[in-house]
């Protein structure tokens, strides 16, 4: 049976519980809890997003596949532990399931990074900057996009993760806050500073002849 998430809205004086908006994934999650085989629908829905996140973070197809596989297997086996906790700040249409899923993905990516560090196959200097556009040159041909991603790849960990979750996986600020374990305000500042950083970086590229900083 589908559960309704309740919370107390606003200040203490406004103590009337409100019914949260329906999580867009709730029917699929409830079905998968009853019948694990039904998890496939969630898997198909989020495969590309989780894989993209892992790929942007790890910069290697095989490592991204490993992290993606571990994420979905872990999500399936632990689905009975998942509890929907909608908050007013989640916003309309927010999905707490996908926040939970990306939390798992983030942990698996971190684990994959640790394993890669134990058996490095490239000099560290070359692995710091993730550049999947080199590998996917046939899919993305624009030099501007390449320059933009290189600038994003040079960002420190949480800023880069926030940018990928925002621009590639299209999570809301509230959802990213849930994934990273930060407040919404902190995530907003994180992304704003990251954008300014990337803009500065691309401005340097512009002076060297790249048009990355120009208006499209």
């Amino acid at each position, binding site marked *: 049976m589908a559960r309704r998430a309740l919370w107390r809205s606003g200040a203490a004086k406004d103590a009337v519980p409100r019914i949260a908006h329906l999580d867009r994934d709730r029917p699929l999650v409830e079905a998968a809890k009853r019948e694990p085989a039904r998890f496939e629908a969630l898997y198909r829905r989020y495969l*590309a997003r989780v894989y*993209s996140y892992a790929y942007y973070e790890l910069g290697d197809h095989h490592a991204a596949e490993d992290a993606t596989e571990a994420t979905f297997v872990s999500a399936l086996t632990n689905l009975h532990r998942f509890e929907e906790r909608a908050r007013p700040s989640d916003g309309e249409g927010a999905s707490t399931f996908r926040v939970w899923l990306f939390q798992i993905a983030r942990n698996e990516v971190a684990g994959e990074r640790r394993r890669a560090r134990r058996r490095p196959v490239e000099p560290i200097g070359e692995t710091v900057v993730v550049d*999947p556009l080199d590998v996917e040159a046939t899919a993305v041909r624009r030099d501007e996009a390449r320059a933009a991603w290189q600038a994003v790849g040079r960002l420190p960990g949480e800023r880069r993760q926030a940018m990928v979750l925002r621009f590639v996986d299209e999570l809301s600020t509230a959802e990213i806050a849930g994934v990273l374990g930060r407040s919404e305000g902190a995530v*907003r500042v994180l992304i704003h500073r990251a954008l300014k950083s990337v803009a500065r970086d691309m401005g340097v590229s512009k002076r060297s002849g790249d048009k990355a900083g120009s*208006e499209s």
Partner: protein
Amino acid sequence: MSLTRRDGGEIEALITDRYLDSLLAIQPAPYLEGGPLGSDDSLGAAVRAVSRRLATDLPRFHPSFRFEERLALRLAEVAASMRLPVAAGAEGAMVPMRELRPALLEPLRGASDDENHPDARPLLIGGAVAASALSIAGAWLAWRRRTSPMARAIRAAHSMRQPGGGA
């Protein structure tokens, strides 16, 4: 950093966030191009340009079809292994016996010692357990039916196999 400056930074971040919400929405807000935010100096031109570029040019990657199907198969196996306890009867619904009585118990009338309290004990229906119970009941019934020539033949053969049961 002073409180004023910190507030200013947070306000800028909030404006950027609103801008990104509209930029990444399926139907962008009309002010994106030349509107209030589009021409607002509080959101730097460079930040706007970078936001647009990242929003449009960063691709979402999809793994290979082979990987997708291989992982789907593995998840199906994991899901099947998760269902095993249910199939073995570890989880079942408690159903009052009277609901099954007309269909299930009528052939066994006279065999029960609990005729006066038919609803005293619930029946666990849980996959293999229920199926096994029905099979055993059916076999027992076939065994005890005296009117069947086949049953008499089976009983005769059985008694011959038992020690001291005949030649």
